[in-house]
């Protein structure tokens, strides 16, 4: 063999030596490279162990925030007004989807989801991060849940999320006091960040937006919990490592009596107006209803554009407006207060009389201020003037008092200021006086302005809530309570077992959760002290007489009520022009007001009523029956008779109540 020959003449030992040398060098190279690998692994696993250990953990361990359950809200008798109900929503994580647009169309077709929602979703898709869940449908029905579950495999990245959502079982009945919760928006987020509460809201979707839900957000929300979970690279939870349960928000018991609230709603049916009922002894709001109202549940799930437009449409009488905290001219309802001011200033006494020819004229001016009763009431004292709502008496009184006296006293009765009620919707309205005119019109005050203030008109508005507060102060003879809803808060408290041995045996069983309630105290405001406290009685007595003698609305009532009506003119009549409600625009017709309290001798409830733009009659005709229904409900079967038999119940001496209802100026 040729090759063998060649091999034969080779220098084998030299070749072997050369090869051995080269192999040895290669071996050294191998060792060197192995040492490099080694030192690198050593560096990773020994030197940098902690760093990589941490990174490995942060890879796999996620702290999932767990939203606390929002506190429930009960009425004063324990009726549930705001609860949390399980809701199923359809969510999408864009990153996990395969054919997003096609699948959205298919799912929408399957579950009958509106195009509006689809459009909203596509919009949201643009702004949100791809790995965050986006909601396609917020409230799936049981049928939709079942339908989707069966087909879920067709739609990767689509899933159903179950969570608790706020539900108001009474719907529109409670919205103006409870308010509602809705999706946390950017402004809310900023506010939460400012209070450094962002972390506490990490799992929370909704926040109180209005009413008590907003005011007591911090009490209701609770404390976030955390679930420490192990996840895989797709973010799927593999197992729970640790769990810190959230602490539910506190339950609130509020002063509303839902049955009274229902009666208020029924009494206002078909009218635009509001009722505020308050306990003058404590300031507790028993009912606050504004009609028309709207269902707060609509906002919890994100209101549709269509529904929202409907609420905003003026044809629907602006249900969003909480009329119990809107400013209205108080009209004659404040006459008792003005009378009291006159007595206190010494401008009049119980016996002072004024002659009413049917009109009032300031000296040197031509304009005649008319009484609502054209022939005039003749000679009237304070009691007559309140009972018959004589305008001329109060025109005269106001002018004699001068505006500053009025402003000062009305300020004491809480006008022009927030009442301090525990909803943010509280309004100041307008306190009559020089300041109000200057700030609004930059004009000085004229005596002519004072004349109108005398009958609760002109530059003066009050909210029904303020009015209720003022009447409560009056009924309390100067004691001032802050109007409020919140009665008590209830939270779950873990009670450690007393028995130490038992604790050691089985701790989890021995820890008892107990609901602990705490009454909420609202401090009184400084009272109004009169020079002569008898003056309270004079005015209150006149209101008593008014309710008992004047209005048929209180005929047959088994409790002893006092009250005062008011009818506010919204347009000024020209001299000698007759008011004809049918001839003027609906929105310019008179507002009917009524304030009442009962029982006369020991007031338990104050009611203030506004009915907007009535067609016929005034406060006594339109608003007093509303107050009557509320009071009837409040007292139920209770019979409360006046200690003075001459005064109650007696309608034998009903005076002039149907004499002039047809043409009511300021009755």
């Amino acid at each position, binding site marked *: 063999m040729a*090759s063998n020959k060649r091999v034969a003449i*080779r220098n084998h030992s*030299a070749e072997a030596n050369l090869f051995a040398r*080269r192999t040895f060098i290669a*071996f050294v190279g*191998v060792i060197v490279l*192995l040492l490099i690998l080694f030192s690198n692994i050593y560096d990773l*696993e020994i030197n940098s162990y902690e760093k990589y250990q941490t990174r490995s953990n942060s*890879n796999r361990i996620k702290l999932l925030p767990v939203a606390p359950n929002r506190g429930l809200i009960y009425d004063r008798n324990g009726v549930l007004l705001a609860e949390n109900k399980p809701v199923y929503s359809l969510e999408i994580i864009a990153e996990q989807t395969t054919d997003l647009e096609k699948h959205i169309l298919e799912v929408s077709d399957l579950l009958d989801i509106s195009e509006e929602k689809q459009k909203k979703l596509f919009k949201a898709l643009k702004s949100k991060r791809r790995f965050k869940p986006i909601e396609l449908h917020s409230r799936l029905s049981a049928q939709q849940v079942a339908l989707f579950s069966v087909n879920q495999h067709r739609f990767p990245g689509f899933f159903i999320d179950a969570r608790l959502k706020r539900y108001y079982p009474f719907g529109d009945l409670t919205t103006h006091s409870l308010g509602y919760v809705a999706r946390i928006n950017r402004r809310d987020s900023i506010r939460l960040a400012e209070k450094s509460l962002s972390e506490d809201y990490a799992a929370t979707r909704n926040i109180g937006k209005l009413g008590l839900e907003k005011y007591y957000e911090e009490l209701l929300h609770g404390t976030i919990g955390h679930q420490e979970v192990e996840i895989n*690279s797709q973010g799927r939870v593999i197992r729970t490592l640790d769990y810190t349960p959230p602490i539910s928000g506190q339950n609130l018991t509020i002063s509303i009596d839902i049955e009274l609230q229902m009666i208020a709603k029924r009494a206002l049916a078909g009218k635009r107006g509001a009722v505020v009922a308050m306990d003058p002894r404590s300031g507790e709001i028993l009912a606050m209803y504004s009609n028309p109202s709207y269902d707060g549940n609509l906002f919890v799930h994100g209101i549709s554009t269509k529904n929202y437009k409907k609420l905003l449409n003026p044809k629907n009488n602006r249900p969003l407006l909480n009329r119990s905290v809107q400013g209205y001219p108080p009209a004659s309802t404040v006459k008792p207060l003005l009378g009291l001011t006159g007595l206190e200033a010494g401008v009049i006494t119980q016996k002072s009389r004024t002659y009413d020819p049917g009109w009032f004229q300031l000296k040197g001016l031509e304009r005649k201020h008319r009484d609502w009763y054209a022939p005039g009431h003749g000679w009237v004292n304070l009691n007559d003037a309140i009972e018959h709502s004589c305008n001329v008496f109060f025109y005269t009184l106001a002018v004699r008092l001068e505006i500053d006296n009025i402003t000062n006293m009305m300020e004491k009765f809480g006008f022009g200021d927030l009442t301090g009620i525990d909803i943010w919707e509280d309004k100041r309205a307008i306190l009559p006086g020089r300041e109000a005119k200057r700030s609004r019109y930059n004009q000085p005050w004229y005596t002519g302005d004072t004349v109108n203030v005398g009958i609760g008109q002109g530059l003066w508005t009050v909210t029904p809530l303020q009015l209720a507060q003022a009447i409560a102060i009056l009924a309390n003879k100067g004691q001032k309570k802050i109007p409020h809803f919140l009665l008590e808060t209830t939270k779950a408290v873990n009670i450690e077992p007393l028995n130490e041995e038992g604790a050691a045996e089985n701790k989890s069983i021995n820890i008892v959760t107990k609901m602990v309630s705490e009454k909420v105290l609202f401090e009184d405001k400084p009272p109004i002290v009169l020079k002569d406290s008898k003056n309270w009685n004079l005015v209150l007595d006149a209101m008593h007489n008014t309710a008992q003698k004047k209005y048929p609305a209180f005929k047959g009532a088994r409790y002893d009520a006092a009250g005062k009506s008011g009818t506010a003119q919204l347009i000024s009549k020209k001299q000698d022009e007759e008011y004809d409600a049918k001839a003027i625009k609906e929105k310019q017709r008179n507002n009917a007001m009524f304030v009442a309290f009962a029982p006369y001798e020991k007031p338990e409830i104050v009611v203030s009523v506004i009915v907007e733009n009535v067609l016929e009659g005034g406060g006594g005709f339109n608003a007093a029956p509303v107050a009557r229904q509320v009071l009837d409900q409040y007292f139920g079967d209770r019979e409360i008779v006046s200690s003075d038999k001459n005064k109650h119940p007696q309608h034998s001496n009903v005076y002039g109540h149907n004499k002039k209802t047809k043409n009511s100026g300021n009755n």
Partner: protein
Amino acid sequence: MQNHGYDQQKKRSFWQRIHIDLPLLLCILALLVLGLFVVYSAGGQEIDIVYRQIKRVGIALLVMFTLAQIPPLAYQKWAVPVFIFGLLLLVAVLLFGHVGKGAQRWLDLGFIKFQPSEIMKLVVPIMIAGYVSQQNLPAKLSTIIIAFILVLLPTILIFRQPDFGTSILIASSGIFVIFLAGVSWKLIGVCTGLALGFAPILWFYLLGSYQKQRVTTFLNPEQDPLGSGYQIIQSKIAIGSGGFDGKGWLQGTQSQLEFLPERHTDFIFAVFSEEFGFIGVVALLSVYLLIVMRGLWISVKAEHAFTKLLAGSITLTFFVYVFVNIGMVSGLLPVVGVPLPLVSYGGTSMVTLLAGFGMLMAISTHKRFIA
């Protein structure tokens, strides 16, 4: 000669008669068994994957055993035609190859799909060793230049597929032959210089965007931690978090929770170090070192220049596998597709590797003077 395996008086043992190198076999089996355990853990604890791997290992061991029976000098005769055939296949791959994972590596013959580049891993060292050993060593310059060209042809063809990993392995298998054949240090210096000068040309003209990306990612993986750098970062986290004694078999969170891509194939070393820690790595590298030492010992003890060169090349190329794989998984080298030999899941490389060991065993056991 008499074939009595248990007769200790005979110069040939039972293992020599069946042409198996026992130390080598034990080391290989140790790694293969270890590999099954790690593959089970890395493959999501699915026993099916292990069964498939066992099947492949079985086939590969059969190939090893078969090749070990062939006298090594026989390879030399077939070297040239097989080499030419292999080159033609590589050209065919470029022209009609099956595209997978952004690279053209597979040739689909209808009944079977295979990678001609794998065959070349064995053919190239045989060819070069055969060519160089025809003359006296140390080899002449002209021989070396021709040998270089022979290495370069398949390397470039494979590089074009593109398969950076395999082209490195094939180039090294050839270059090791040339190195062991005694190429002068002067020439080695010149070649190194040329290679460095060639690097920019390689970067700008020959590397595809996917290869360039791998290199930039290697240089700075944290630049794109969720994109191209993800793999290497997760791999380093896996290794580093293993610590001294590891998280325990099946307990590696990086792999079990699927943070680590390609965990049962190219990145299996990360799974191994996460679960078995530094101790495990020391043991693993020791076994690899034993195999390399045994292989080099066989090559030194081989009778012919051809078998010496072939054995040396096979052994050192095996080490290149180990070094490149562990280097890339631990962040020392850019990510190129090289499996961890004898441990990674996968059929083709397993067969080629064990075929190489079969040849090593043949070299170690077919000796003329024993009779």
